[in-house]
């Protein structure tokens, strides 16, 4: 017996290296590392690197740029939920949601930290919980069936499978509450030193509160009334504003997508990116194989429909879309755009600034891109929300409340910055046009806009591009060509399908999204 208990002690060796779970919320260094855990998935391909974009790609602005069956099936609304692009993103969003829950709970009893750090960290945790919850909710949530959610505040948390809420509006309720708490706890962005830039801040929380109400409003029009005041707080209290004052209106808009302006007043929330990591989206949309000089992936290409949406004098068109012959700088060399790969004849231009650096066309000389072509991040942050969208939500909220004349102020602020004439009394049509042109090819999800506006026929129309006679010549003439056949979206498919494996592992607790 004695021998046996000796053995039991002898075999008990202790682990080395990784800290034990007991220490996570003890001391400022550990707390900061714990909070960093909430941001890990921001840099994943599964999330804002590429895969969440496949569902936005189902709009009329973009097509799948190279044969890719899963992507095509998502765009055609014939996906099953098994597609790794959807299933993987879901998985990583829930991972972050749970880390945020654990942080909220752990920080309540955190030791050896200042109250400032505690408040900021709690604010970051509420923000990140609300932020990932928002993405899950709006993509997979249905009026008649919300997405799974459990908060650490619930007594059953951790002991049960997070239940599907009754309606996506119940999810929005929870998200709005988290964003409110985050806004109360978080500092202003201006209070952050350069080492803390990228953390959640007050304007980001208020910004997502606006977006949550705006999406919620499709089921409860009363939510529009809440939006304008929050938009004003973002402007007045948080000091957020459009970038203006450049040499030309076109420069005003181009400045938004420059590395130097990663943290401009227009910034609300971005995937912080650099040459080590961040969002790889810039490489994802670059010409397939990058004209032989870098590993572009060539995935999402703009359509003729988007190109034609712009007013003739709108400088945003050239800033957003590369058309044959358009001049740009690529690794220090001036080029005129052409592509033998683009199916539509266009490429997204918004994120090309980081590729302008370097010399002699040698990508290795560019200090602003990740040299690893399998993870093509750049020093340009990927904007997920910027102040222009806040102005447009304010305008939309006012129009939806019948205050069309009031909506002219925020709407025209966006137009004036790019040198366009004001609209006196904007209608929803004006708002839709402005929102499309201002935010095209960004992560603001035009597909969701079309769904919530009920523009089914717009989604289902066939999409077009340009077939250039000599695709290696920037100034070759072209013929219009249909690049995507008509689709058959119906509002029954407003929310995306859940991975059936998740449903089966829930052992009957989860139901597939209605309509699938």
């Amino acid at each position, binding site marked *: 017996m004695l021998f046996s208990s000796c053995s039991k002690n002898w075999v008990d*060796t202790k682990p080395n290296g990784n800290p034990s779970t007991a220490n996570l919320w003890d001391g400022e260094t550990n707390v900061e590392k714990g909070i960093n855990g909430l941001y890990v998935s921001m840099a994943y391909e599964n999330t804002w690197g590429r895969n969440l974009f496949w569902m936005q790609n189902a709009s009329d602005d973009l097509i799948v740029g190279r*044969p890719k069956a899963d992507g095509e099936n998502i765009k055609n609304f014939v996906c099953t939920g098994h597609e790794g692009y959807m299933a993987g993103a879901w998985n990583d969003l829930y991972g972050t949601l749970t880390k945020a829950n654990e942080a909220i709970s752990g920080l309540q009893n955190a030791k050896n930290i200042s109250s400032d750090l505690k408040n900021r960290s709690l604010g970051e945790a509420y923000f990140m919980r609300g932020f990932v919850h928002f993405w899950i909710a709006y993509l997979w949530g249905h009026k008649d069936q919300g997405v799974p959610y459990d908060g650490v505040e619930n007594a059953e948390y951790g002991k049960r499978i997070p239940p599907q809420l009754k309606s996506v509006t119940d999810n929005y309720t929870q998200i709005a509450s988290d964003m409110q708490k985050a806004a109360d706890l978080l500092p202003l962005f201006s209070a952050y030193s350069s080492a803390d830039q990228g953390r959640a801040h007050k304007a980001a929380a208020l910004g997502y509160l606006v977006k949550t109400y705006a999406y919620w409003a499709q089921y409860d029009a009363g939510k529009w009334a809440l939006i304008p005041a929050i938009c004003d707080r973002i402007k007045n209290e948080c000091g957020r504003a459009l970038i203006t004052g450049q040499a030309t209106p076109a420069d005003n808009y181009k400045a938004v997508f420059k590395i130097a302006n990663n943290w401009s007043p227009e910034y609300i929330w971005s995937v912080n990116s650099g040459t080590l990591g961040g969002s790889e989206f810039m490489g994802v949309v670059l010409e397939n194989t990058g004209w032989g000089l870098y590993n572009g992936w060539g995935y999402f290409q703009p359509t003729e429909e988007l190109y034609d949406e712009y007013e003739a004098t709108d400088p945003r068109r050239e800033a957003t879309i590369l058309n044959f012959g358009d001049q740009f700088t690529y690794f220090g060399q001036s080029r005129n755009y052409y592509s033998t790969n683009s199916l539509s004849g266009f490429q997204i231009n918004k994120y090309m600034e980081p590729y302008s650096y370097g010399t002699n066309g040698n990508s290795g000389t560019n200090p602003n891109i990740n040299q690893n072509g399998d993870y093509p991040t750049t020093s340009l942050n990927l904007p997920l929300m910027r102040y222009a969208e806040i102005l447009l939500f304010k305008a939309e909220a006012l129009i939806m409340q019948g205050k069309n004349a009031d909506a002219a102020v925020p709407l025209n602020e966006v137009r004036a910055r790019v040198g366009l004439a004001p609209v006196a009394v904007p209608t929803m049509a004006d708002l839709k046009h402005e929102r499309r042109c201002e935010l095209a090819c960004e992560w603001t999800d035009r597909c969701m806009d079309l769904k919530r506006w009920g523009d089914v026929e717009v989604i289902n129309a066939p999409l077009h591009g340009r077939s250039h006679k000599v695709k290696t010549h920037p100034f070759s003439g072209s013929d219009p060509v249909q690049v995507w056949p008509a689709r058959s979206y119906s509002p029954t498919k407003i929310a995306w399908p859940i991975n059936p494996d998740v449903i089966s592992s*829930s052992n009957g607790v989860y139901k597939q999204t209605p309509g699938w």
Partner: protein
Amino acid sequence: MNKLFMGLFLLAFALRGMAQTNPNTATGVIRNENGEGLEGAVVRLLNSANGFNQSTSSNDKGIFTFTKVPVGGGYQFIITHVGYAGDTLTGYEMKENGRISLSVILQNKNTSLDRVVVIGYGSMRKKDLSAAVSEVPNMDQIKERPVVNVENMIQGQVAGVTVVADGGHPDKAPSVVIRGKGSRGDENVLYVVDGVPNAPYNPADVVSITVLKDAASAAIYGAFSGSAGVILITTRQARATKDGPSVDYTAFAGAKTAWRLPQSLTADKTAQVANLAAKKAGQQPLDGWDATKNPYDQVTRTDWIHSIFRTGLVHRHTIAVNSGTDKFSTLFEGRYEDNEGTLLNTYNKNISGRMNANYVFSPHVKFKQDVFVNNNDNRGTATDNGYSGTILSGIYMPRSATVYYSDGSFGGVGPIGSQYNGIHGDAINPVATLLRNQPYNKRTDIQSISELKVTNIIPGLSFVTRFSYKSVNWLYKDFEPKRPEPGKPNNQNTLTYKTDREHYWIWENTANYEHRFGRHSLGAMASTTSQEDWHMGFTASGKTIDNEATWAQFFVNAADFSGMQPTDYETKDRNVSYVGRLSYSWADRYFLTGSYRYDIAGRLAAGYRGKGLPGVTAAWKISSEPFFNVAPVDLLKIRASWGRIGNLGSIGLYYGYLTLKLDNSYQVGNGSPYSPALYMENAVTPSLSWETSEQKDLGLDVSLLGERLNFTFDYFDKLTYDLIQQQFTNWPNTMGIGAPLVNQGKIRNTGFEFSGSWRGKAGRVDYEVGGNLATLKNRVDYIDGNAKSVWTFTDAWRGTLVPFQSVVGQPYYSYWLVKTAGIFQTQKEVDDYVGPTGSKIQPGARPGDLKFVDQNKDGKITDADKVYMGSSAPKFTYGFTANVRYHGFDLSVFMQGVSGVKLFHAFKESTLNGAEQGYNRWDKILDAWSTTNTHSNIPIISANDPNNNFQTASDWYLEDGGYLRVKSLIIGYTFPRFIKKSSLRVYISGDNLFTFTKYSGMDPEVGGNGLDGGQFPVSRVYSGGVKISL
């Protein structure tokens, strides 16, 4: 002399006693060469004159008696005994009230049944075994094959042991599964070499291999058995030599080739297929495929597949010097072995040295010391990656491309600066992948075994203490150069160092006691084991090294270490075990053993560390019963066993301690620096213990006709329970944290095993034929009690095709697929294929697309239509050997096969799919369905796939993976006389000469769970060998 007197006295006494009560008695005593009475000899007394015919058997003193023998002459005694040469005595006469008495000495035949077989913590006569223990037959032949590991040596030789090669990789050993897979995790067989678990050794030194197939025999290794079972290996030991030292040299050398290789499309056909695909999809063909705009990509320049494959050389040389007396003997050995793969620049090399010494201090005190040093160097390549696998890259690459550019650098998908390179997708030059892989990858194992054995402490009691120490040093340095060529360029070079240092020691103290009294035979064994496995190591990387020359590939020249956090570790795994066994037999008829092992494992959480594992066996040797008297039967034994083994390896180290995962984020700080992040990765179940296998076995051993015909038959029922797995059911990923490991679920394997052999002589030809066959039924027995629960498996091809799922009653790793019903030939067929509401079941389908079976008749094709369709575990395995000798010549043939195997040929998704990137494709795509080629089963070529022909995990991918292989053919000649006392043998051999299979992939031995992404074949080897003893 004393003994003899004593014996005579006893005999006289016994005979007198009988004579008084029984007149007309014939009696006698049967002894062995040492004068000891032989029990169990069958004595038949015959008289053809009066028809008398009786038999009896000798008792434990060797005495037999016949009573009431009729008076008369011409009596004949026929005496037989298993393991001894029989004797016949004639011409005896019985007189009224008379007595015949005789004394017979039988000569030992030294037969195979008397051979001693190594079992766990001891050894046993083969004929007394009461558990399912198999020795690998044909060791002499096996060792001449040009194979360099034991896994290959035992393939097909033992019923119930399934060995599957991992393709033709020289640096990977085949997987070995004993009596079916039962674990949800890794299930490694425990190899015990000369009593030491996991000791390194030279395969050329192997003398015998024993497989402990049932849990009762493996239970003695408890939780270390792995739920797979135990294989015991004995190696050559130093021996006394009569005429000075002996020197042996053995060697073989062979040429290895790959075969059944696929071919990709020539350049012009690639363009044709791409244009056809675009046309069918209603898309504009890309200009790059237009011969007038881009003539370069229409010209075939390279045969990629034949550029990456080569004829590899495999050779091994062993030299051994053995010398010694009865008191002290030594064996020195050296080996060099180089096994080149059939893919460029892949190999596995070993250099080893060994010293083995035996000291006999006194007849009862022996000491053995063994030191083995092995240096391994290997280089492999990944072929199973759906994006960058080397063979797949060989298909993906356009054949218009060249291996090298004119400046000598590696070529990409097209010329540098070509406007059309984008049409080819991100294919990688596979020759470059293979040749750029130049890591330093060396590992040195040093093993020392010291063993002291004391016998006869009191009569019957012996004690062995054995201390084994292993030290392993591994250093890996890899410089990955830039990959600038077009295709999938990577302008980042990286230098990585990895190291691991291990020491492992195990100390065992074992006492054995044997005692015979009367007809009872009793054995007892007790052992304690303590062991520690310690590892320490680190990984560090740097990048951006301007100069890629060899001299510059050092950290000092790396400009950038950012984002490359080095990692390091130190782990210690300690275990203590108590082992005991009792065995009892009576009169060579009834055999019983019971064993128990209690393991205490440090890796488990406190309070849950210890667990006992029992084993019980019983056997009845019917042929030893006095009533059983069938002359041709040398041995007839039935046996039964029950036992449990554990799989400690199913749990990681330090499970009882909750630690955080270190990760990193780029979100915080201007410029996106690396910031460390900590979080809990997985939920934890403190009460977790290891998986356990419980197994019942029923067996029959028969030996006939003077042991020329032997066979063994077994039935087993193996249930692995408390499976360790990540919880799936009731833990959807919305929990947001990795599911905890749980002990849940059961897998059952049942099967019949048969092996038989016949030894014979035809004129001057000696021959042996042997065969084995086994059935295996594998199924999930229990998941969680909920009939709807399933096990899913994440194994996927290119992230999309997920072919596996299991449910109770179906095999583990079952295929779960949508059934297909051929190809739609006409639009009418598509339109007529409607569901209950009259709407089309496959609205996206066109003629030439796959027709999927709407199993649940709901009018659409979803996962609910998937059905279970078997697994890659063979239902039936078999092997057949024939050895023939004539004078000095010998011939040996070995064939091996499996059936009831299903394979998922995922390679087709990437290579026959018109909608997959711009890759080049398998030339079989030319046979795809078209209006003029309607009999094809390959769907139509199209750049889009609205019908999900290829993205659906369907039985279109599923193929029969059964095969029969002529595994080995050896023809040898042993010189009858060769320079004085020395001997010489030479032979030639062929391995994997022929394979008969219906499988359309390169090779039916794909390894893993049957998902074949382009596994390359086990090599065909032609070799020759020599054995010289001086």
